[in-house]
């Protein structure tokens, strides 16, 4: 398979950031109250991810290893600010609905995970496609969860009524508790059907430098960043052999 196409498939299916790697749980839980929010959040994250991946990949040979975290933070935060200002200017409704979760893309571990694990070691072209794949994977996941919650919780889909009039919406699903419940059911289903997911340990922890398991994350990555980074080359090889 073409290696650029492979990055897209990888992001959408094999290492889907939400369903398989369980990354970026905060925005996933917070904004999936409707399918439209999922589109807004997903695409904003995709743009930030693509831009940061390309910039870091282009500059990867000039960034001293010891100061790379502050460097990544500044690049990602600048991209987020650009996206935030664009949203405010052209789609104020979306910007209003997503609120502080747009600036919080800075601390989304999908971005840092990809920049650190992939863009800092690969060419600009590959990093670009990795960003597109991961971003689309995240967007599709958010739309799916958002649609599920919106259809059952409000009886609408993209603000169009789809359920019959007699349907009594389960309004809890669009409230905060519903977010936890939907994710609980999703991961229970993955366990039951033995689907690959970071929550049942069936995904190799090596796929991302941060381990990719938000559920058991104790943030060690930031403390032991250096060791992880030096082991990375072998991991990339073994991850590539999977298919």
């Amino acid at each position: 398979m073409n290696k650029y196409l492979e990055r897209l498939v990888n992001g959408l299916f094999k290492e889907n950031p939400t369903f398989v790697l369980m990354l970026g749980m905060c925005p996933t839980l917070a904004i999936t109250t409707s399918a439209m929010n999922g589109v807004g959040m997903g695409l904003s994250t995709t743009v930030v991810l693509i831009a940061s991946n390309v910039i870091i990949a282009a500059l990867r040979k000039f960034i001293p290893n010891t100061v790379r975290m502050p460097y990544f933070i500044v690049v990602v935060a600048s991209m987020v600010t650009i996206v935030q200002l664009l949203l405010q200017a052209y789609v104020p409704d979306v910007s209003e609905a997503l609120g502080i979760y747009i600036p919080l893309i800075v601390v989304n571990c999908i971005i840092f995970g990809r920049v650190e694990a992939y863009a800092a070691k690969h060419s600009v072209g590959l990093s670009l496609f990795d960003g597109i794949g991961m971003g689309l994977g995240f967007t599709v996941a958010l739309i799916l969860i958002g649609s599920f919650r919106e259809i059952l919780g409000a009886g609408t889909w993209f603000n169009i009524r789809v359920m019959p009039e007699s349907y009594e919406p389960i309004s809890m699903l669009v409230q905060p508790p519903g977010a936890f419940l939907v994710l609980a059911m999703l991961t229970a289903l993955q366990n039951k059907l033995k689907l690959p997911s970071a929550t049942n340990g069936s995904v190799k922890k090596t796929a991302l430098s941060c381990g990719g398991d938000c559920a058991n994350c104790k943030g060690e990555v930031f403390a032991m960043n250096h060791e992880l980074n030096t082991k990375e080359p072998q991991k990339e090889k073994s991850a590539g052999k999977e298919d």
Partner: protein
Amino acid sequence: MNSYFANLVIIFITAALINNVILSQFLGICPFLGISNKIKSAVGMGLAVIFVITTSSLICSLIYRYILDPMDLKYLQTIVFIIVIAALVQFVEMVVKKISPALYNALGVYLPLITTNCSVLGVALLNVEKEYDLVEGIVNGVASALGFTISIILMAGIREKMVHNDIPKALKGFPITLITATLMAMAFYGFKGLV
């Protein structure tokens, strides 16, 4: 003066219980699910979060009020806040290590984890969004951090008991923790009637 104080009490209750950072704002889910298996570590994490959020909301409010706002640089807030928080966590760690080794032993391991905790940046951004003044911002910071601590300690308490329960195989681990979080979120949803 009296109504100002009443306003502070309302901000406190709203941030700690009604808009609980974890159970209704979904900020800091990773440490909430990751470090909540023992009460002892949950308390340590909670205290470290209180410490950092209070200092960071103070410093971020000051920077926003006296540097970014007068110079018309509001659009730089995300970049400035994240850098300030990252530097602050490092700085707090060094200071605590130097002046109080006992406190460092208790909080030390949790401090590096806090840079990754989105509730710190979230609270700083919320203070700006809601146009809180300095005192209101600090009260909001303390209360949000307290809300974080309450929910993580409650979760740890439940999970310690849950170890002895017979849980269906498919629900073990992550799913049952999330179901517990669902029930807790429902309970905290009830606080909506308070204000």
